[in-house]
């Protein structure tokens, strides 16, 4: 986003009052090997999923903390978005899903030798959640285990 000072007062207050978790410190995992030797996974909070998957749901009690699996081989034609927020412009995603989920860009980086390889599956959560405890306690660790089981070294996180 542009600096909050550039937004309207309502938008600025909305962003500043958002109930995100506050931490005192940061878990730190250094790179074990170079990116060109690493397997990269992709996790997004864009509310994307396969056509035919259960849609994400609106909720008055914090939001939908489930996740969906998007196999790397999925065509962009088979991915849709049921993100529950109206607070963003969907036009770019209609035009090109890579603007939030770089499914075509990452293989290009593999071809260029900048990334070693990609995981077989990507993972998608809802964003704009007011209560993320379901992710912290359940769905987040579950996805982390799946990524580790695939031998992922580096995870790229994208919002929408």
């Amino acid at each position, binding site marked *: 986003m542009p600096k909050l000072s550039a937004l309207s007062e309502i938008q600025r207050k909305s962003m500043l009052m958002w109930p995100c978790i506050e931490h005192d*410190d940061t878990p730190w995992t250094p790179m074990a090997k170079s990116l060109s030797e690493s397997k990269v996974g992709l996790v997004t909070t864009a509310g994307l999923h396969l056509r035919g998957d259960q*849609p994400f749901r609106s909720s008055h009690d914090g939001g939908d903390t489930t996740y969906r699996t998007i196999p790397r081989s999925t*065509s962009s034609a088979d991915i849709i978005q049921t993100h529950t927020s109206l607070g963003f412009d969907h*036009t770019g995603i209609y035009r090109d899903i890579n*603007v939030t989920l770089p499914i075509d860009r990452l293989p290009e980086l593999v071809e260029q030798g900048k990334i070693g390889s990609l995981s077989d599956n990507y993972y998608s959560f809802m964003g704009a959640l007011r209560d993320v405890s379901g992710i912290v306690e359940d769905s987040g660790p579950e996805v982390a285990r799946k990524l580790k089981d695939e031998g992922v070294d580096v995870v790229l996180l994208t919002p929408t």
Partner: protein
Amino acid sequence: MTTTGIVLIEEHAQRVKPPRMLAVPFFFGNALGEADNPEYQHKVLQATFDLLDRDQGPVLEQLPDDMVPDILMQGSETTNESSEKGLNSADELTELRAYYEQWMNSHDGRTAVGGSSIPQRRFRGVVRFIEGFISGEETDMKERPEDINVPQFLRLCVNDLKAFYYEARMAQRPDGADRDIHDWFWSQTAMGALVMALGTHMSGIDDKESQAVAFGIAR
């Protein structure tokens, strides 16, 4: 595992303190900068992966703000003129169908329509469903799965209708700016007026779920 990522609101990353984050100057919906601009998307990705080289954190760096999309225009910023022009949503759907199909054909079948699972050729029925709901009728669609209630299903229907209109308009005006498409939808189409009326109606229902859905339909 080592993580790196993109954040749209830098102030939130300052509070959460993830290990490595690139703060980008783009509005929601444009995390990698710009649609159909692979070169710029690679620039954002490179800057995000560059954070992996830092040896301590939290790392929160900024991408230079040399490209900033326009602020999203909401429906309430406009006055809808469709009723004065005698337009109705059902006829609009018919008129836009060829453009929507043109969009799909030129994008290898890719479309954002699909959340409701209702084929676009049945969208006139969706309009009747929404109109009936607003007027207080006991209304439903056979395509609604049992585990998705009516308010949630209405949201999925609206998402599909909007995507249909936007994609049709992008086929009709390939060089149109995003803001012009929003302005067209909310101020000139009968569908924009219908969606706004649905959002207003649902926000007045004494049910928190309906109100939550309304917030994501129109404001």
